[in-house]
Every structure is written in structure tokens, then in C-alpha cells.
């Protein structure tokens, strides 16, 4: 009975791919498969984004002595679906003096860059759309495009609050990109490859990278989480949309689905940051201590998702318990503390590799 094997996503995709190849010429089939994969990913991440919103609302409620959404569907499971439907059906309003072209373009920059990063994610050994040899580099590059969208949104809205928010976003992302990049570089030193699947495989024998690299890895992980939270513009670094100072920041003038793109992109970015952390520090899809390594039918993607959700919960924990930093304190933290620490950490890691002290 092949029943258990059916739950492995690979088998389903393989069946579909075989079927498409059988009815089309080779070139047409490969293009069709690409489109199908893209659509599947798009749907997957729209749903993932919506459920992360729900999770955030539930987590917020737990922190705040509340119950959270519980009316639409069991346990409020359909709440964000209903919200998304509402946002789609809403009229798109805007002010007269906007720069129309840039104003309409901005949300797509943000959401497309977030979705493009998904392409290289190693959910499990077989479940990866695009396994390129510069995966980590691609992720960093793509995720920095999003800030252009935020800057455009703030500039084209012709609103002073939005402009201040966009300026803050620019300086915040440019600063914290360094920390994200350097902490990733520290871990790349350890694995010697930029390919995400190989980074994960390197952890199969030696244990998770956060343990392999001794203290420098742990420091790199902490810096990565701080800088990653700043990259996604979430509290305590949510100066971009600091609602008590700027109203809603860069998306003040957006409504309906365009607003929803910004909103969804924030959650997908959170997913991206957590996923990078899981791949680089916590062994990606590998099970802890190899407990399910010998069970052939066990979908490894579950381990990946559990780890990612754990880190996402950590980021939500930050958001609902910390006050917000001031903009100059934000820059002080990066340039005076995180960056020097990061450079030193990189040196230390290089020495450890050179002396072959890794576990």
C-alpha cells in the first residue's frame, strides 16, 4: 500500500510533472512546469502570509490578556481570509497630488521582492524550487529590493508623515543590511558554500551550525535576529510606521489591496528572516538529533516549519513586549555596537576555522 508515500509533496509534484511532460513537447512542458510552480508558490505564500497575520493576532492576544479573533470560523481560522476578501473588494482611494506612476508601482516592489526570495527556500531535500549555488547571496540581494518600494511609497504619497517614515526606512535598512550580511558571512565561513541545500547538508554530520561554530555562531545568531527584526521593520524597530509618531508611516495614504500588499509583505519578510536563520543556524529541514532520519516517509518539511514558527514566535514576542527605539538610538546600536562586534566575530570565526577548532 502506497498510502503513506502519498503525503510526501514530492510524489504529487512528480506525478504532475510527469503528466505535463507526457502531453507536451519538451520546451513547452518546462515552461508550463515553471508557471505551475510559480502559481503554487504564490498561492502557498498568500495563505502563509494570511495565517501569519492570524498567528500574530492570536499571539498578541495571549500577551495582552485577550482572546483574539474567535468569531469567523473555528478558533478564528477564517478571520484573516475574511479580512483579505474585504480588502480586495474595497475601493482604492488616493489623494489628488500623488505621483500616480510611482504610487501604484511601490506596493509591487515590496510584495514581489518578498515573494521572489521564496524561490530558493529549501523547505526539504526535495522541496526546493530553485537550488542555485549562490542561494544566500540571492536572498540578501532580493530582500534589499523591498526598501525601494517603501521609499517610493513615502515619496510618491506627497504626505509629510509618509516621507518621514520612508526616510527612516531607508537609513534603517541600509544600516542593518550590513549586520545581516556580516552575520550570514560568518556562517558561510563555516560551511564554505553559498548553496542553501549544501549548507543544510553540512549540518547532517557535525550538528547544527549554531553548535559547530562555538560562541561566534551564537553571537552571529543573536546579531542576525536583532538585525533581521530591524530589516523587517518590526517592533522594537518599527520606526517606519511608528503609529504614535507618524500615524501609519509610509503607507498612510494607501488603502484596500495596495495597503494589504505592504501588510502581507511584512509577514512574508518575517518568514524569510526566520527561514534564513533556520537554514544557517538550526539545520534547516534536519530533525533534531536525527530522530526521524531513518523514517523514510516522514515529511522533513515539518521540521523546517516547526523551527521557523519558533523563531517567528520569538519575533512576535519582541514586538509585544518592547517599547520602540528612537531613530538616533537605532543607528547608534547598529554602527557603534553591532557592526564592530560583528567584524570581530567574523575574525574570531576565521581564526577558529583556520585552527580547525570546529566540532
Amino acid at each position, binding site marked *: 500500500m502506497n498510502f503513506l508515500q502519498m503525503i510526501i509533496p514530492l510524489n504529487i509534484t512528480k506525478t504532475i510533472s510527469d503528466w505535463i511532460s507526457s502531453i507536451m513537447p519538451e520546451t513547452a512542458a518546462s515552461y508550463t512546469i515553471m508557471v505551475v510552480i510559480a502559481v503554487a508558490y504564490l498561492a502557498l505564500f498568500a495563505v502563509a502570509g494570511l495565517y501569519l497575520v492570524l498567528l500574530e493576532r492570536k499571539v*498578541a492576544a495571549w*500577551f*495582552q*490578556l*485577550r482572546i483574539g479573533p474567535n468569531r469567523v470560523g473555528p478558533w478564528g481560522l477564517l478571520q484573516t481570509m475574511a479580512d483579505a476578501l474585504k480588502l480586495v473588494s474595497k475601493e482604492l482611494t488616493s489623494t489628488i497630488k500623488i505621483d500616480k506612476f510611482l504610487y501604484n508601482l511601490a506596493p509591487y516592489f515590496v510584495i514581489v521582492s518578498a515573494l521572489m526570495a521564496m524561490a530558493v527556500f529549501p523547505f526539504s531535500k526535495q522541496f526546493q524550487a530553485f537550488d542555485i549555488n549562490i542561494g544566500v547571496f540571492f536572498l540578501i540581494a532580493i530582500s534589499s529590493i523591498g526598501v525601494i518600494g517603501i521609499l517610493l511609497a513615502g515619496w510618491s504619497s506627497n504626505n*509629510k*508623515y509618509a516621507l*518621514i517614515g520612508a526616510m527612516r526606512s531607508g537609513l534603517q535598512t541600509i544600516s542593518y543590511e550590513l549586520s545581516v550580511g556580516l552575520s550570514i558571512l560568518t556562517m558561510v565561513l563555516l560551511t564554505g558554500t553559498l548553496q542553501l541545500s549544501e549548507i543544510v547538508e553540512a549540518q547532517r554530520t557535525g550538528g547544527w551550525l549554531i553548535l559547530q561554530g562555538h560562541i561566534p555562531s551564537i553571537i552571529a545568531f543573536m546579531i542576525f535576529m536583532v538585525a533581521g527584526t530591524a530589516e523587517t521593520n518590526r*517592533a*522594537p524597530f*518599527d*520606526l517606519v510606521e*511608528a*503609529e*504614535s*509618531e*507618524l*500615524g501609519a508611516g509610509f503607507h498612510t495614504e494607501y488603502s484596500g489591496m495596495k495597503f494589504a500588499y505592504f501588510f502581507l509583505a511584512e509577514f512574508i519578510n518575517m518568514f524569510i528572516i526566520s527561514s534564513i536563520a533556520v537554514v544557517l543556524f538550526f539545520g534547516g529541514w534536519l530533525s533534531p538529533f536525527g530522530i526521524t532520519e531513518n523514517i523514510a516517509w516522514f515529511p522533513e518539511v515539518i521540521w523546517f516549519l516547526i523551527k521557523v514558527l519558533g523563531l517567528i514566535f520569538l519575533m512576535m514576542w519582541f514586538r*509585544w*513586549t*518592547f*517599547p*520602540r*527605539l*528612537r*531613530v*538616533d*538610538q537605532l543607528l547608534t546600536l547598529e554602527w557603534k555596537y553591532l557592526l564592530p562586534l560583528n567584524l570581530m566575530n567574523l575574525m574570531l570565526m576565521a581564526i577558529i576555522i583556520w585552527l580547525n577548532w570546529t566540532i
Partner: protein
Amino acid sequence: MTDQQVQNKIKTEEYFINMGPQHPAAHGVLRLILTIDGEIIKNVEPDLGYIHRSIEKMCERDSYQQIVHLTDRMDYLSSHINNEAVCLTVEKGLEIEVSDRVKVIRTIIAELTRIASHCLWWGVMGMDLGALTTYFYAFRDREMINDIFEETCGARLTMNYNIPGGLMFDIHPNFVKRTKDFITHFKTKIPEYNLLLTDNVIFHKRTKGVGIITKEDAISFGVSGPVARGSGFSSDVRKHHPYSAYDRVDFKEILFTEGDTFARYQVRMMELWESVSIIEQLIDNIPEGETKTATKAVIKLPKGEFYQRVETARGELGVYINSTGNKNPYRVKFRSPGFSNLSILNHISKDVMIADLVATMASFDFVIPDIDR
């Protein structure tokens, strides 16, 4: 190019921005016209009048019993204390002495009001600084106080429990028990507040050394209440000019000398403990007696001027009544704490960041209807 030429070429301009009348940090309809250079504030000009209801003028139309109800709508977070201020002024004019029972009950409820007001301030202060969770913790405890009020006088916010000559009716039989329950509950919750916000390192960074008021400035701008006491200006009316039952309780006036946002924060947090201690001293021995001293159905104050000041949760509230001997006052003037405190905002908010202004305003605890009246 010389430096001057470069400066001319990349000339920057200051710009105006309206903070309010509808802005999350304004806590109501206060409009601040900010002059900003980048993110640095150069000038703050408060623009009032968006919620002006001419309460002082309406008082000239109404009888003395009716004036009490209008004062609820000034500083709605210390409505009981506002009512008390008017009643004390009228009682002063009529030269009637209320019973000890009335005095003690008024004091207990005033302190409960102060705790409720400070709770709300604490929640909102956290929210202004980006820590959204504080709000819900504060409201959990404030809700208990509102329930006590609801049981005793039927209203949760605008209480109207005082009348000239005493209280509208006696306290509810459950009042003492529920107040004691609340005090026991609340004493375990203040440390929780400290754990959540006071000890947070980001909170310290945001508040220490921000919006410093010197003692001299505090005196010359007429600042009062926790804002003045954060600058070391001893101005507690309860201590210096005791009214109601404040002369028979033992409490400290909280003074801090730093004068920054964090000092003002600490004053209010310590005042929570003092209010708890005042209630604890009074709740067990509420004396028996009348809850009303009989007045005539139509109160006519003798010709003359009457003034009484009380300490609300925000500072010193003064009630001035000028009577010509009629059933209506000739002129009523309220010296509200919020208005005087607002006047110093421009003085201390020059060359600070927008986020600092928000933090400073949060520590002032503005209630806009109190500023505008």
C-alpha cells in the same frame, strides 16, 4: 567649492507639520503645529479650541447643583475630584461643615479615581512609546475600580456622586469589601507593571534625560501635579492645603529632582503606592454619620469671591466663584492643571526629535477637554 557654497547649493528648509487634531499621540483633539528640520523639532505651537464647550460660561447660566455635573466633562479621568472641588467651594461659601463620613468617603473615592487615572496614563504612556501590551494590563485593573464606582453611584466615568453639602447617597454595602479586594489585588500588580515597562532598558533610553524641566522653569510656568513634582517642586495641594480627610492620613509627597520624563514617570508610579496606602488607612474606619448636610433647595451663595483648590490626578485644580448673591454665579473660572502644564511644552521641546516630543507629552498626561474646557 567653499563650505558656504556647498551649503547654499544643498540648502535645507524647515517645514511645518500638523500633529493633530487627529493624531494617535495627541490623546484627543490637541493640534500641535510643529516646525521641523529633518526630524529635529524647532518649534511647537499648541493650537487649542477643538473641544471648547464654554463650560465656564455655561456655569453662569446654571444653579450651583448643576455646575457640579459640568465639571465631569473637564478632566473626565478625575471626574470625582473635579466635582469635589466645586462642592468644597460652594460649601465654603455657605459656611457649612460636612460630616466626617462624607469627608472620608470623598477621600477614598478621590484616591481610587487617582489610581484609575494613573493606570490609564501608564497604559497610554507605554503605547506612545511603542509597547502596546501595557494598555491592556492597565485596563484590567482600572476596570475593577470602575466596577466599584458603578455599584456605588451608578456611573463608571462621569460620576456626579458629590453634591454641595455631601454625597448624593450613601455608599453601597459592598463598597468596603470590594475596595479591599481591589487593594489586595492591585498591590500584586504594581510590581508587574515595573517588570513590564519600568525596568526595560529601551524604556530607560527613551525617557531618561528627555524633556527636562528645571525647578525654576516649573515654578515660573505654573506647572503643577506630578509634572512639577518630577522637577522637585513641592506642590501637592493635599499636603500643603489639606482638604476633606487628607489632614488625618499619613502619606508622602513624592519628589524627584531630575525633571525628565523618567522622573515624572516614577512620580506617578510611586503615587500609586501612596494612594493605596491612603485608602488602606481610611477604608477600615469610615465613621458613621450623615451623608448629607441639609441645604436649601435653591442655593444662593452670599455676595463675594470664593476659591478652593484640590489636587487632581494631573495637578492643581482651582475653582473660583464670583457671586452676587443670586442663585447663579456671576463668574466661574477653573484653573485647570492641563492648561498650565501645556504652556511649558514649547520651552522644553526645542531641538529634540519627534519621538522625544511624543514621550514628553505622554509623561505630561494631557486630557484635552481639561485644557480646552
